[in-house]
């Protein structure tokens, strides 16, 4: 991957900004490896958690000898284990994501790269996948600053050609990745079967779900005129319209209802919903919106 492409996904300025950030999960998950994050697990660390009586088999290194000297009892000192965080980014790479300038997919990649970058520098386990990936082929698990290049390579490989329904894609993802953690689903939610079943899978996994709803400016404020035959890029479905001011108003109303519906659905199920459009700089999105929503700190 060239430096230019890297810069298109992660600008140096943004990277400087991201250096100071970390991903925050509202839930505490168990990590796989030692990381920088406090874990539910008690283990070796510097942060004291509790005392308990010694039972046979405990690591003698954990005994608090000072307490033994005072109380003549074998007390084991428990420390909170510091673990890594599982951070998944799931990008919707359906053809509909290829629209807009920059395309919604490109925007999704930028976002994924930014979030992934934070995860990598905080030693979290970062997995970036696209919806169409088969169950067998899992996305690479990335960890550490060194993996930034790999992450970007992975992102670069994602093309808007996977004509797969949102529900199917999420389902496969869940099958591929049994672990828990934070998942950021970047999608335009444009699925005629609906997005509800897809999100339900994620809810069922008890993951900390962030739904990043990305729309292009053209979708928010369509610039169309005259008698048109709209062709759906995914299923070649056609819709004949004669653009008129009332129809445009009606479209906007429908779009509003759609986004509001998604937001309601998410908030009722403990998911975070964030609507972004492709003209909103990623930098702003990270520093303002995501920080407010608590995904980053």
């Amino acid at each position, binding site marked *: 991957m060239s430096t230019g492409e890297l810069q298109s996904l992660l600008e140096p300025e943004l990277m400087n900004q991201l250096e100071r950030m970390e991903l925050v999960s509202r839930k505490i998950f168990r990590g796989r490896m030692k990381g920088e994050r406090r874990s539910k697990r008690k283990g070796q660390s510097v942060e004291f958690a509790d005392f308990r009586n010694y039972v046979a088999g405990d690591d003698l290194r954990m005994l608090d000898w000072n307490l033994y000297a005072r109380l003549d009892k074998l007390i084991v000192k428990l420390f909170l284990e510091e673990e890594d965080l599982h951070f998944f980014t799931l990008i919707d790479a359906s053809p509909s994501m290829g629209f807009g300038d920059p395309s919604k997919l490109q925007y999704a990649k930028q976002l994924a790269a930014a979030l992934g970058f934070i995860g990598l520098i905080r030693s979290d386990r970062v997995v970036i996948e696209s919806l169409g990936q088969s169950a067998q082929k899992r996305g690479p698990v990335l960890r550490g600053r060194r993996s930034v290049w790999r992450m970007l390579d992975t992102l670069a490989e994602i093309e808007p050609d996977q004509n797969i329904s949102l529900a199917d894609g999420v389902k496969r993802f869940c099958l591929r990745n049994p672990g828990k953690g934070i998942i950021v689903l970047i999608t335009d939610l444009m699925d005629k079967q609906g997005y509800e079943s897809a999100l339900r899978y994620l809810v069922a996994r008890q993951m900390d779900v962030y739904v990043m709803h990305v729309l292009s400016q053209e979708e928010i404020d369509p610039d169309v005129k005259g*008698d048109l035959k709209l062709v759906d*890029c995914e299923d070649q479905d056609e819709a004949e319209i004669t653009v008129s001011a009332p129809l445009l108003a009606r479209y906007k109303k429908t779009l509003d209802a759609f986004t509001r519906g998604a937001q309601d659905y998410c908030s009722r199920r403990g998911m975070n919903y964030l609507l972004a459009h492709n003209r909103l700089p990623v930098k702003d999105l990270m520093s303002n919106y995501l920080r407010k929503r608590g995904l980053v700190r």
Partner: protein
Amino acid sequence: MTSLFRNALEPLWLWGLMALLPLAVLALYFLKLKRDPVEVPSTYLWKKSIEDLHVNSLWQKLRRSLLLFLQLLLLALAILALLRPGWEGQELQGQRMIFAIDNSASMGSADVKDAESRLAEAKKQTIALIEQMQSDMAAMVISFNNEARVMQGFTSNRRKLREAVEKIELTSRPTNLLGALQLADGLANPGQVIEPESNVAIDISDGEKTTLYIFSDGRFSEVKGFSLGNLQPQFFVPLGTREANNLAITAFSTRRSESRPDERQAFIQVSNFSTDEQTSVVELSHNGTFLDAQEVTVPSGEARGVTFALAGVESGKLEAKLSSTALKAMSDALAIDNKAYAAVNDTSAGRVLLVTPGNKVLMTALSTERIKRYADVEIATPDTLKTKEHQELAASGAYDLIIYDQCAPEERMPRSNTLFFGSVPPTWYASTKAPAAEEESPPAETDAAAESTEPAPEAPAEQPTPTVERVALPAIIDQSREHPLMAYVELGDFRINGSNIVPPPKGGQVLVESTQGPLVSIAPREGFEDAVIGFELTVNKDGSEYINADWYRRYSFPTFLLNAFGYFVNQGQEGSDRTNLPGQALALRTKSLAEKLTVKGPDNRETVVERNADGSYLFHDTEQPGYYEILDAGKVESRFAVNLFDGQESNVKLAVMGDDDATDNIESVASLQIGHVEVKGTQQPARKEIWRPLLLLAIILLLVEWYIYNRRVYL
């Protein structure tokens, strides 16, 4: 509807075809609806947006399609324009047209719907016809009342024709169609010349067919003996209705009361030209001050008179008008005849000159009070006739009457009426054959009679005029009792010693006939009249006066003199009080004999009139009904009034030929007969075409469509 689209598409199926056109456009619109395919991320939201529109998608597709509506509208307008909608009527016919528009008084009737007057309607219809003219057509505009006038000669210039029509104004004159027809005929057949010898009109070129349109209410007498020649076909455009009502003042005059000579009376005649009996109030005012009012009830189609006593009214303007409430109630159509005017002039005595050698009988007879009321009598001797002063005065027409007793004027007759006693005017026989007898009349039986012939030959001294036959003791056997001079004059009971026989010249009339020839005759002369009495009353001989006729002893003598004064002197004065008809030329007379007179019309416009050679002032500008004041050196000398007083004009019901059944359809009776040709009537010949504005609207619509198409303005 049929009247709207008259002269449009004749076969009915064409209408169906036209109706199919919008449907065809609609179909084409669907076929044309080729939508540009646009790839979008998802049709999901769009489909949701147009979901409810699919319920009745066919019409929903058309909904808000402004362009389609505009196209349909454009097509509708184009179809309408193609159908050439127009109001029912005739189309212009022929290449040459004459529009004859009646502008007589009755055309001022306000009984035409949506028009100020019949004339306004006529003008409107004429202009509508002019609008239909093609570039190769020529037309002419004539206005006619009792005189016809060419407003615009043959031209293809529609603007000129329109302007000519606009210029036509309502007049107060009566109607005479013949003049208009003669004028139109003369202009329609320009190739006609009249051979002077045979007085026969010969066509020197083939006359072009000319269409004559007559716009009138038909208020004119039947036109007989007129050949239309090339004036065909013709259209009579009847204007007005047969139900028009009108109440009119048809006469208004003032006269001295018979019983009380110092008091005047006003007579007003009110005619009812409506179908019901009408009651109205006649209001009389003097110089703008209300004098009196009387109610008058007039049965339908009749006239009633009212009389007002004008005590103390000496001079000024009298105005009689019908009360407006009654007029409004009956919806009076014509306003001009609701008022009438009369002028009351000072009763100034006439000026009479008696030239006599000293006839005491005559002088006594002319010195009565009764005579003085008529005129101031000046007395002169025959010598005066020779003076230059007298000759100038006589030539200027200063006298109303000159009585020549036993004498006659020197060279020329004076410019006034004359009465001769025992002498003959020098011009009396100039135009008649001279009497054959040259010999002296037989001597009179009396001495006086023999001498009485002396003064007679004086006048024609220088001219070889024939001598006058002198007879003795003529016996009166007949007299003309119809002539005003002889009214109440009973002759035959007096003796005449000797008399001249005075047969009148050509155009004259014998008033008294004797056994030996005419004794009294009267003859006209250049607007005046000369009455000649063959015998003298007295003759002067040797300084003494002898009786020639003892007529002066009879009652008939002063009666005759009064008649003569009344006839010769009072005629002119009565004339000034008499009413005049609009458009009539008047010969005005004044006492002062100024070179110029000023006449102030009802609209306060002043016209200067110059004196004619005969001492009268010819005034033509009497178009407007009302008062006219004759100003001499800034002072009102006398007045006269002009009134319509024309029963035919006031009877404003649409006059048409045919039966008189008012319930008849107008088309069937609205025609008139000219010569032996029946001119067909058309109710509204002016076909009002609206295809031009429709087409204009369609073009505007096309521009709007173009704009919308380019600007993509959507609702």
